Each structure stands twice: as structure tokens, then as C-alpha cells.
């Protein structure tokens, strides 16, 4: 687990050792994930949009945050509870359409739109969870796939008049935040450089909240039970816990994250695509989580970044970007099960060791 601090070894004498010990102590603090996340959302765009190698742009940064939220939530189910759902697009799409429809019918307030999306996803998850969680493993995967596809075809065909069918849902109108702050309103001066515009602050805030929330969940007794279920379900039953209820909790939680992300996406794109319900979208989120690394909260963030980077930027240069992604994906699954984040962690451990065991 990347969040667990590694105890400094006895060589605390050296300067480097001291630093490491202090760093570890800092890491253990409650506020660390929040601080790190805030630092990230401030520094990342500056790096991403300015260095020539990255070719990034602000809209993509926001998109990464949104998908990262989805991926983090999804990983609570996959990485921590060990359940592979191939139908999470159902929550993503349902939340997105709910937010879109709400903005047209009632109010375009972005925060309320996100809440509507999250609530929709949660309700749907309770319903689908009750139906799907009777089975595990491959059956759960195919069952969730089947439900997701059913929703897709219903939205595409019979409900096409409401959803816009293949054209997607257009006409989303987003009102200013809190009624006064226009989403595109830029900040001036230093604040402008660091925080860009109101929209960015909103997306970044949700991103930070998602990280903090996920870390909280993972470190809580819930998180421990989830992991226990992944390792040995039977044993957890024997301990007197209702495994099924915890699975449902994990399922609903992951759907809640998906719903929040979906609402944000509708606010960001002002459009909902029918593909958001298709099983390939479910596949995309699986790829992001696995690519990034399922054994930590932060892995999926890296996965979302890598995926979206290849999809949006590499695709502009190389036509066979999907092939690259596929090879990357297979390589990770085969050889590096802890994903890209695992590689990062390994490097970190190596650096730490060199610092600690440095010169005597």
C-alpha cells in the first residue's frame, strides 16, 4: 500500500535519513493527501500546459481530473473489494444525462447538477447492485455488462427523443456558479496564474475532495473490510460480517464517484454523448484503473492521465494510438500488475533506500 509509511531504518543518523524520517512523519498526517492534492492541482497545469513535450491544454487538464474521480471510485470496487464491473458506464451515462436534463428542465446551477448526477447514480447503483451482486467473478462482470448495454440501447432507441439518441444530448446550459460566478471568469494576477478560472477551481476542488474522500474510506474500517473481502470472502463471513452488504456499499460508493464525475463532465462539456453508456466506456475506465495501478488510491489518477494523454495528444500525432494503448495495457496486466503507480512506488522505494543507506 502506497499510503503506509515505511519505517525509517536505524541509519537515521545521516542527513538524508533525517529528511526521510521527517518526510514520513509528514506523510502520516491526516492532512497530507489534501495538501498533496492541492499542491498537485496548482502545479500540474503549469507543467502540463507549458512544457513542449506535453502539449497540454487546460480543457484536457480538467478532463483528466473528471475521469480521475471516476477512476478512483471505480478502483474502490476493483482494487480494494476485488469486484470487476464491466457496466460502470451505466452510472457515468445515467448521471451525465440526469445532469443534462436537469439543466434544461429546472436549473443550470453546476453544483446542483453534480448533486443530481450523483444521486441518480447512487439510486441506480442500489437497484443494479441488488440484482448483480448475487454472483461474483465473471458472472458479475457479464451481468453488469448486460445491464449497462440494456441502458445503452434503451437510451439510444426508445428513449431517443429524450436523450437525443445518437446525436447526443445538446443544449445543456450552465448557469454561473452560486448565481454570480461565471464558469469562464478568469482570475487576475497571481491568482490567475495559479487558479486560472472559476471552472478550474470547481473541477480541481472536486478532484481534491475525491482524493481525500477515497483515502478516508480506504483508511477506515470499511476500507479494511473491503480489502478483506477481496482476499478471502469466506473468512469475512465467518467473522460474522454480512459480506453482501459491504459489497453493495462498495458498489454504491464507486457509483457515487462516477455520478459526481459524470455531472462534472456534463458541466465541462455541456454535452452528453450516447457513447457514455456503451460498454467500451466501461472498458476504458477498467483500462485506466488497471493501467494506473489498482493497489492504491493514486494509481487510477495516473491511469486516467496516461489514457487521456494518449487518447488526446498522442492521437493527434500518431494514428495507431489505440494499438499503443493496447500494448501498454497488456504489458501492464502481464508484467506489472501494480500498474504505473507501482513503477512510481518502486522508484520511490529505490530512491529512499539509496538515501538511507547512502554514505555511512
Amino acid at each position, binding site marked *: 500500500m502506497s499510503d503506509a509509511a515505511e519505517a525509517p531504518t536505524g541509519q537515521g543518523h545521516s542527513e538524508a535519513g533525517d529528511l526521510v524520517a521527517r518526510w514520513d512523519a509528514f506523510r502520516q498526517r491526516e492532512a497530507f493527501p489534501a495538501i498533496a492534492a492541492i499542491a498537485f492541482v496548482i502545479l500540474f497545469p503549469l507543467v502540463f500546459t507549458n512544457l513542449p513535450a506535453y502539449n497540454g491544454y487546460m480543457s484536457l487538464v480538467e478532463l483528466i481530473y473528471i475521469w480521475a474521480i471516476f477512476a478512483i471510485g471505480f478502483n474502490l470496487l476493483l482494487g480494494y473489494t476485488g469486484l470487476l464491473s464491466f457496466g460502470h458506464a451505466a452510472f457515468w451515462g445515467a448521471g451525465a444525462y440526469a445532469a443534462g436534463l436537469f439543466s434544461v428542465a429546472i436549473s443550470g446551477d453546476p453544483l446542483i447538477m453534480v448533486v443530481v448526477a450523483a444521486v441518480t447514480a447512487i439510486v441506480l447503483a442500489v437497484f443494479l447492485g441488488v440484482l448483480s451482486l448475487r454472483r461474483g467473478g465473471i458472472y458479475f462482470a457479464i451481468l453488469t455488462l448486460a445491464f449497462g448495454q440494456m441502458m445503452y440501447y434503451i437510451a439510444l432507441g426508445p428513449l431517443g427523443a429524450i436523450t437525443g439518441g445518437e446525436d447526443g444530448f445538446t443544449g445543456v446550459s450552465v448557469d454561473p456558479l452560486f448565481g454570480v460566478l461565471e464558469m469562464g471568469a478568469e482570475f487576475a494576477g497571481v491568482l490567475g496564474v495559479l487558479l486560472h478560472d472559476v471552472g478550474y477551481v470547481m473541477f480541481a476542488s472536486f478532484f481534491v475532495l475525491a482524493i481525500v474522500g477515497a483515502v478516508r474510506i480506504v483508511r477506515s474500517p470499511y476500507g479494511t473490510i473491503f480489502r478483506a473481502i477481496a482476499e478471502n470472502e469466506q473468512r469475512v463471513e465467518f467473522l460474522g460480517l454480512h459480506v453482501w452488504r459491504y459489497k453493495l456499499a462498495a458498489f454504491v460508493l464507486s457509483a457515487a464517484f462516477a455520478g459526481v464525475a459524470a455531472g462534472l463532465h456534463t458541466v465541462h462539456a455541456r454535452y452528453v454523448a450516447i457513447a457514455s453508456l456503451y460498454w467500451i466506456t466501461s472498458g476504458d475506465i477498467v483500462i485506466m484503473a488497471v493501467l494506473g495501478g489498482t493497489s492504491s488510491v493514486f494509481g487510477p489518477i495516473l491511469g486516467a492521465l496516461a489514457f487521456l494523454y494518449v487518447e488526446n495528444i498522442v492521437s493527434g500525432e500518431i494514428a495507431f494510438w*489505440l494499438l499503443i494503448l493496447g500494448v501498454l495495457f497488456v504489458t501492464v496486466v502481464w508484467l506489472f500488475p501494480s500498474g504505473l503507480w507501482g513503477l512510481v512506488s518502486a522508484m520511490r522505494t529505490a530512491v529512499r533506500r539509496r538515501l538511507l543507506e547512502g554514505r555511512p
Partner: protein
Amino acid sequence: MSLLATTIGFLIQTLAVASIYILVAIGLSITLGTLKFVNFAHAAVYLAGIYIGLAVALELPFSGDIGRSIGLGEVGLGLGFLAALAVIPIISFGLGLLMERFIARPFYDRPDTDQILVTFGVLLIVQEVIRGLVGGRSMTFTRPEWAQGAVGLGPLGTFARWRLAIIAITAVLVFVVYLYIEYTDVGLAVRAGTEDAEMVNLLGVRVTRPFLLIFGVGSGLAGAAGVVSGPVFSVVPEVGIGVLVPAFLVVVVGGVGSLVGSVVGGLLIGAVEVGLQMGAPTWASVGIYALAAVVIMLRPAGLFGVVEVDK
């Protein structure tokens, strides 16, 4: 049209649609049942079968991005459709063996999720390699005269000749595989291994060989399905992923590890799809997923499933 005619028309239609699903599903079902291996890459064999078949039957223009940079121009044997029909199942058989050796075997002991993920990734790679070499344009499988056109069955209506041929070919292949599994030693080992692999091992039967063969046979069927369905639909690299999900639905409805199950599952799914297309077309796809969902919830092993593939 009389009720009888409509019904028979419906049945023939169902058989035609179901045949392709069945051919692809059998291999999937057997692999899942006997080897407990979830193989999304099965669809890659189907896909490869079609394109290699095209290369055998015609000349394939290598006009994808990678293909153009290699500069191969047109590659193919131009031997015609029949040759492809004969050769592809054998090539697919071989591909199946390779797949078992290099992809399946390292993953037998790894969790279901890893198997799904890696085979899905392999499918994606195969699809993209094909797209890179050949290009994304749709292609047609030209057929000999006797395989084209329609045949009138009197008051029952007219049907595409080739579709009737597909039904016949499927029936023959399924029957042959059935005999193989029921009446040969290899088949016996496989059936026993499906029910209790551990026991079979303890009894001293080397399980790997029959399993390998079964993997190959299943893949051969998938390749045959590819060649056979090539003339019916336009061929694009995406057809692999397109056939994957219906095939899986057939497997779960019919039952994992059971040949009869795959056949019945295929017929059921075909019937629901055709029936809805006749009555309420917009619900056709929803219907087959609903059917699958209901079956999994009530009987996860499927209607004829011998085995429940638990986590």
C-alpha cells in the same frame, strides 16, 4: 402470409442468425468450462480468421497506416472462397494452439479479472494491428456463383442461399464436434476434466494434451464462423469486438462448458433477437441483454451448465 409460413420463416431466420453465434460461442464455452479460462481473445481468432480468409481468397490491399509504410501493396493468394473455407479453420486451429501456449497458460492461475483484462487487451491489439496493416475500409468477400443469390422455398418465402448454407455448415460442424466429445478418448478426458480437473489429474491422465486440442478445436470453429459470416456482413476490423458480446451472452445463457448449452443458448438469443426485430425493432438489442441478465440471476451456470465458474 399464413401463420405456418410466418412461423417457419421465423425459424429459418432464427437458425441463420443463431448459427454464427453458436459457432463462436462453442469455443468460448468449452474453454471457459474445461480450462476455466475467460478468453476475450477468442474474438481475435474470429477476426483473424476473416482477414486471413480474405487474404487467401482474394488479394488484400495493405492500405492501413502501417501497411502503407511497409509498402506491401496487395497481399493475397487469390485462391477463391472455397479454398478459404477449407483452410481457415485449420489455420485458426493453429492460432488457437499458439494462443493457449503463449497467452492462456501463463494466466491459468491468475484471477479471472486478469484473464479478462489480458485477453481483452490482446483482442484490442489484434484489431489495431489489422487496422494498421489493412486499413479500416469495409471489404467484401466475393463468393462463387453458386453461393450467391436467393433460393425460393415456395410459400415460405425466399432466403439468401448462403444463409441456408451457413445453417447447414454449422449443423455439420456442431455434430462433428459433438461426436468428437462424446465418443473419443480425448472427448472423455475433456468431459471429465470439466467436471473435476483435480480428480482427472490424480487418476494419472495428462490433462494438458486434450485441453490443448479443445482450445484448438474451439478456435477452429471461431475461424470457420469468421469465414462463413464474412460474405454476409461487410468486414471491418471492429467486427471482432462486435461478435464478442453476443457470443458471451450465448455462453452464459446456454451454460458454461456445455456444447448443447451453446446450441440452445444461441437459438434462444437468435429467437429473441429475430422475434423482437419483427415486432418491436427498437427493443431487439435490449431484449437479448435482458434475457441474459435474467438467466444469470436465476441460474448462473446457464441453462445446461455443467459447471459454475466461481470466483
